[in-house]
């Protein structure tokens, strides 16, 4: 009789442990997939910026025909992005694009007719909005990584994480070169 009670108790504990494991495992899967989704959101915004550039270059060329150096920088930066294969190279290419765009807008400051052009103003707003979105998307990516890493590191979920091979993920950071102030030459 007593063994019956003990047996039921043990089975209940095992059942609860299994349920809890399933719960934690699924939670980790959800958090990990959020990270991947957040990363692809960054890519969507980077792609949008990439697509806006040709229109911008054409608009500026219409007014600032002699600024060859700046146009070449932008074109090169864009080409670097399509050529990049590794994650590091892609990050490098993105930084190049950011710097090239900043130079382009700085140059445009000298042409008041260009600044008043409606298409240019629209592109300026769109690119500035896209830069903000890239920043917000990176921020959200880091938030999801923090959430995931915290769950993996905390007890008792770290036992499940270790058992099923959930590894910590890296935060998005700026490389050192991107932290330096942008040099603009006229």
């Amino acid at each position, binding site marked *: 009789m007593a063994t019956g009670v003990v047996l039921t108790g043990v089975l209940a504990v095992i059942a609860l442990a299994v349920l809890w494991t399933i719960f934690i495992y699924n939670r980790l899967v959800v958090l990990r997939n959020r990270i991947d989704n957040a990363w692809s959101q960054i890519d969507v915004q980077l792609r949008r910026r990439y697509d806006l550039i040709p229109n911008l270059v054409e608009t500026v060329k219409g007014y600032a025909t002699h600024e060859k150096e700046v146009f070449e920088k932008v074109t090169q930066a864009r080409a670097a992005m399509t050529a990049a294969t590794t994650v590091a190279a892609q990050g490098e290419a993105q930084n190049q694009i950011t710097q090239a765009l900043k130079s382009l807008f700085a140059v445009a400051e000298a042409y008041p007719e260009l600044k008043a052009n409606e298409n240019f103003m*629209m592109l300026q*707003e*769109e690119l500035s*909005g896209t830069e903000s979105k890239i920043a*917000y*998307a990176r921020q*959200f990516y880091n*938030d999801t990584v923090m959430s995931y890493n915290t769950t993996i590191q905390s007890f008792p979920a770290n036992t499940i994480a270790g058992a099923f091979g959930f590894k910590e993920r890296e935060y998005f950071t700026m490389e050192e070169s991107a932290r330096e102030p942008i040099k603009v030459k006229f």
Partner: protein
Amino acid sequence: MYNAISSNIWKSFALVAFFVALITGIGYVFAHALESPAILPIAVVVAVISSVGSYYYSDRMVLAVSHAHPATREEHAHLINSVEGLALAAGLPAPSIYVIDDPSPNAFATGRDPKHAVICVTTGLMEKLNRIELEGVIGHEMSHIKDYDIRLMALVAVLAGTVVLMSDWMIRSFWFRGRRDNRNGNAIFVLLALVLALLSPLAATVIQLAVSRNREYLADAEGAMLTRYPEGLASALEKIDQAPEPLKEASKATAHLFIANPLKKTDGFLSSLFSTHPPIEERIRRLRTM
């Protein structure tokens, strides 16, 4: 910021739990006084039915009442980009964006869940605030959506409605029953029930407003978290507070949705107890000490 967020979330839980406990207590007393155990479930069902419509169509109703029109990329590119950016930061789908033509600066968010969400701003808001302040306000509204605040306030409204219905029923039955069932033990319950029936609607309203104020603080804290810049929202609230004109299209029914109380202000302890929004000075102070 993290502390402000977690403490506000705990307060919400505490308030709602207290409310539910209160309702259960009142329901128990009323059921004994009337010797009818059905009063609580019936009141809940009626309250739910009367709230369901307004909850489900909250977005369309409020927009129609406020005469809002959708924002267009040609006219409001910056607004649309800001909202889409903050939606990315919050990990939400971008809500629909509407504009009200009114010089009074204000904004609201509505919709039963993030997939059916709406953010609406006035033209006055876009004119008076700079970009950083505008993003602070939009961050606040986005946080309301992320926290399912519309759903929570609908739930709290159902709770308050339940209390009012039960109290109403209690008073009516006492009126019509007279003194027919006059057992001693029952008399105490009847007396207690009457007192509760008179006071509890007031208590329910106070709790409902306390929850509303608590969620406003939470949206402030989470909005600051989204932009990582509490000063933006603080500065925006200052400007909104200083604007002289009340919002034309706001009424008592929609006032609780806006970021700042759109109706004329009154000072004093009682008015702050019965206000849907916390006092702006306190909101700004909390933001600036994050």
